[in-house]
């Protein structure tokens, strides 16, 4: 897979100062074992062939690159292209990583899988991969997220997963990760933790990035075939940041491509009710990595808010912190109301209901396109579809369904 990043992370799992492995001692052996197994699998043609076949025949890759003509015309500026991860099996990019890690778990001889989920997309993808490969699956999900993402909870259960509600802390994604880690600490000898974003201790940020980089590799190839050139901008939403790093990483060396990550500004950065770690946080350690973090003066992790459960997380992957510090990517924040506008805009102009997470990126990209000349190209990762969000959107719009 791509090594266009100068080999980061380094041997200690660092992207510059960010990353590392800040975990309870009990997990150190498992992380070392996972790292070794992953590096061996990455270089094993048989593993790669098996994963590529599943991604093609089962997950539906490559996903289309779609020129959003009416959206572009409506905005009256640059041409906007959508990388259609919403058309991958299970309706989001999460399947890329879930299949990769589930295959790896089988290689490790671990037949019990635990995962966390926020919006439920990673939980559904993990439950799907486990059903496909015959693995036991337990998904931890914040009680608050279970309430707002009920359809995905039902999907996971239909797929044979056990969904365990998490009542501690803020009862969202952060606490689901805490609980998944507690399970892993307890059952580490038999269990693989199938972490869903490019966060956590080394090797997760590297491994999840590699599995998601298929997004950017395909998009680059498709755009070159169609337009004969690279995009001017690549835009993606950032919660933990897996779809964004998957899109960005293959463009890392292409300095003419501006990378923009869109975080959730929730009710506004000034209100404290947001999830914009890079825009409004400072570096700290949560869930095994040193990275940007929303925390108070005492180092306590702050509660977050976003209309989209998938972005409602106080941390962010360490590679994004590195991109921010080095200036390779720029990070902006888009609020709940604007995300809803992005959702409606794409529905009305293109007949596509995006998930609320990429609706943030759509809003930013559409307004960016307006400021650019017609020959400019903006590539957006449409990381998931919006079916799961209909109840939330209806409620926000004051509609009874």
């Amino acid at each position, binding site marked *: 897979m791509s090594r266009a990043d100068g080999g980061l992370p380094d041997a200690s799992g660092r992207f510059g100062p960010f990353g590392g492995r800040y975990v*309870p*001692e009990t997990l*150190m052996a498992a992380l070392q074992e996972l790292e070794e197994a992953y590096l061996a699998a990455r270089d094993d043609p048989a593993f790669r062939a098996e994963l590529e076949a599943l991604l093609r025949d089962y997950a539906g890759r490559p996903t289309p690159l779609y020129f959003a003509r009416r959206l572009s015309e409506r905005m009256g500026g640059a041409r906007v292209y959508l990388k259609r991860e919403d058309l991958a099996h299970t309706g989001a990019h999460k399947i890329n990583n879930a299949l990769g890690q589930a295959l790896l778990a089988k290689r490790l001889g671990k037949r019990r899988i635990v995962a966390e989920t926020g919006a439920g997309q990673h939980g559904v993808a993990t439950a799907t991969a486990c059903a496909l490969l015959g693995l036991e699956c337990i998904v931890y999900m914040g009680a608050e997220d279970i309430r707002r993402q009920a359809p995905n909870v039902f999907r996971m259960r239909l797929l044979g997963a056990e969904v365990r509600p998490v009542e501690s802390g803020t009862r969202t994604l952060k606490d689901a990760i805490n609980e998944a880690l507690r399970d892993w*600490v307890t059952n580490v000898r038999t269990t693989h933790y199938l972490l869903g974003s490019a966060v956590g201790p080394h090797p997760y940020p590297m491994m999840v990035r590699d599995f998601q980089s298929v997004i950017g590799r395909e998009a680059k190839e498709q755009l070159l075939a169609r337009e004969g050139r690279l995009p001017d901008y690549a835009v993606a939403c950032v919660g933990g940041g897996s779809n964004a790093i998957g899109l960005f990483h293959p463009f890392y060396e292409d300095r003419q491509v501006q990378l923009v990550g869109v975080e959730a500004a929730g009710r506004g950065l000034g209100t404290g009710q947001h999830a914009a770690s890079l825009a409004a946080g400072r570096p700290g350690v949560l*869930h095994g990595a040193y990275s940007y973090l929303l*925390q108070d003066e*005492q180092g306590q992790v702050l509660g977050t808010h976003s209309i989209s459960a998938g972005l409602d997380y106080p941390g962010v992957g360490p590679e994004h912190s590195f991109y921010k510090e080095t200036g390779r990517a720029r990070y902006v924040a888009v609020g709940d109301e604007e995300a809803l506008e992005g959702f409606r805009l794409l529905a009305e102009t293109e007949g596509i209901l995006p998930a609320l997470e990429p609706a943030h990126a759509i809003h930013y990209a559409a307004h960016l396109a307006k400021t650019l000349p017609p020959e400019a190209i903006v590539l957006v990762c449409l990381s998931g579809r919006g079916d799961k969000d209909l109840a939330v959107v209806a409620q926000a719009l004051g509609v009874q369904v």
Partner: protein
Amino acid sequence: MGRIAACFRDLRERGEMGIIAYLTVGYPDVDSTLRLVPALLAGGAHLVELGIPFSDPLADGATVQRATQAALEQGVTPATCLQVVGTLRERGVEAPLVLMGYFNPVLAYGVERFAADAAAAGVDGLIVVDLPWEEAGPVLAACRAYGIDLVPLVAPTTSDERLARIGSEASGFIYCVSVTGVTGAREELPPDLPDFLRRVRERTALPVAVGFGISKRKHVESLRPWAEAVVVGSAIIQCLDGARPDEREERVKAYVEVLAGRRGQDEA
């Protein structure tokens, strides 16, 4: 010689098993912590661990999570914890006091400044649950500079190579996590615990303490051949639950007396 080393030397001379008692600072309130530490020592504890509350205690089970949450709701900060140690020293507590917590609050305070202020307050040791030895460099340097022991955790899953490295570089004592799991009282200890403790002992000259799941006198007795001390946490917090404020000190004192073999189970 520091207080921790002196404490284990005295234990060895007396042939006694050490009791390390854990409290979350500020549970149920800060004033209680100040009164409970002397009560634990009066009951027979030799060393006290004071937990710095953190919003995301991912190595802790339900009991310590709940105590942590209650402490945070009362506004307990790392600075509060240092003040508690300072106050205990002013009140004449001479036993070794060890702070235990997660890395981010220490990082936010400033590693160097934290070590300096901790030493000034009278802290003898520091345990950072999510700071494996490979990541501990800056904290270890700061602790050494101010004469604080950075006490490492080792687990049944820790390899022999890492045990040897940690066992030769650490100071104070080695904290052995008895099970693969989170903190919390358990009925039985795992059967392979002696094998694990033997692996540790063969690779360090430091005293060995065993924690996670320890709550009964029978646990203490069974570990005597393998360890210098046991750590008891969740069981002490459970003693506090449901106790009237005026009963708390007596309850934890009586509990530690049972653990230490000073009184029978039925008398507690």
